[in-house]
């Protein structure tokens, strides 16, 4: 897939970026296979044009929108975010996109809209993992993720359409994906075709598959271990081979606590995961 250069407002950051090659070849996108190298191998033919996103549920404006039009609503900006996977590794990625909240406000969600539910494309013809349970890791597709309306409206929550200056490659969730930097990576759903405003909390994919391992909130928290491994520290996927590896201590809310901790002041469940 050919990636197009984007026009965007550049960002400054003192974080060490993960090399582009690693960002685009180390992906969890089970629709294209469960090995992290699979998506880069099997996703290249994904058809991302034309692309529509269906808006539904508790909002005044609903319907189907062309991605080209959605892209005209807000200027693109670069956001350099830490990404922390629930598997205890991390990257730093220069995303390009716009704030999800700015997009959602256009649809005028009603007071009943307590949650925002996202769905990934369901197209077994294009996605081998959806054709075959072995290839897809036994997940029920389509992949579904959700946020509370407050999380969705938070200025850090990004709808990304690019990385490293160009449009997203398919393996990273082209053409449009979510990025929620204070949550484990599986919350940041890829290749979105549907956004639904809901009154009730949705059933989400990984939480449904293993509720004791993956919570609905899934906020990065070093003091809450995954049942099978510690979350206290993380291995940095950076440049260099096995002799130049680094670990770092995992930060609460992945280091974005100052901005987002207030979202959870009344919610006990969050302390678990």
């Amino acid at each position, binding site marked *: 897939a050919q990636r197009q250069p984007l026009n965007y407002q550049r960002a400054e950051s003192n974080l060490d970026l993960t090399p582009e*090659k*690693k*960002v685009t*070849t*180390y992906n969890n996108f*089970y629709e294209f296979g*469960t090995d*992290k*190298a699979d998506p880069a191998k099997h996703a290249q033919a994904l058809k991302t044009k034309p692309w529509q996103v269906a808006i539904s549920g508790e909002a005044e404006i609903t319907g189907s929108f062309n991605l080209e039009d959605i892209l005209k609503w807000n200027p693109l900006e670069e956001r350099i975010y830490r990404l922390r996977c629930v*598997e205890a*590794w991390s990257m730093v990625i220069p995303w390009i996109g716009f704030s999800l909240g700015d997009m959602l406000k256009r649809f005028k969600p009603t007071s009943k809209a307590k949650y925002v539910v996202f769905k990934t494309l369901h197209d077994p013809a294009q996605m081998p993992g959806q054709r075959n*349970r*072995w290839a*897809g*890791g*036994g*997940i029920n597709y389509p992949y579904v993720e959700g946020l509370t309306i407050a999380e969705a409206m938070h200025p850090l929550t990004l709808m990304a359409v690019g990385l490293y200056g160009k449009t997203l490659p398919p393996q990273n969730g082209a053409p449009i994906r979510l990025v929620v930097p204070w949550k484990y990576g599986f919350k940041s759903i890829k290749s979105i075709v549907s956004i639904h405003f809901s009154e009730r909390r949705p059933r989400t994919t990984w939480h449904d*598959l293993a509720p004791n391992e993956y919570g609905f909130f899934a906020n990065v928290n070093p003091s809450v*271990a995954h049942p*099978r*491994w*510690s979350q*206290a*520290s993380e*291995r940095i*996927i950076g*440049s*260099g*081979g*096995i*002799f*130049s*590896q*680094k*670990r770092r201590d995992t930060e609460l809310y992945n280091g974005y606590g100052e901005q987002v901790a207030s979202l959870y002041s009344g919610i006990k469940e969050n302390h678990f995961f």
Partner: protein
Amino acid sequence: MPQLITTKPQLWALKLVIHGACLLPAIWLFYLAAIDDLGADPVKELIHFYGIGAVHCLFATLLVSPLSRWRKTPLLMRCRRMLGLYVAFYATFHILCFLVFEWQLQWIDVIDEVIRRPYITVGFIAWLVLMALTTTSLKLIQRKMGARWVQLHSLVYPAFALVLLHFYWSQKSPWNDALLYALAGTLLLYSKRKQLLAWVRLVK
């Protein structure tokens, strides 16, 4: 049914092939991981490669005796110890990579993981058993231990079961290759049920 190998030189040739098949990939992948040419996460790749390598060698080791009986080739049995030692070799590198590259020699954290993560505990116990078998694999020790040596080395079967459990348990999602390995391993253990039952009685 013809024998697979009948002469000493054939046995040596076979051993050479096994050495090559076990050592060359282990060295080559380490080299690729060192120069950052083994995927985006060379640490994970290397750990998985050595882990699965140990599983493959373990299957090969346990298949030697049925194969030699089936093809009436007693000479084959002379490869078994060597294959068993490669199981220990791969398993040890699997653990060393976890300790040195994944955890940067943070001993306290590693000990914590071994104790608190069941799938790691299970793998570690299997490795301890393999080490017991390795250190008693010299012919001299074998002769001295006599019947007790056979009892001790039958621990390879429970270790095998623990390895397969460790492999399956380490996976994030329920449907994966490790399930196929566990299935094949169950079949293999089932085919050896008579020896296993005899051994259980002996230990009791």
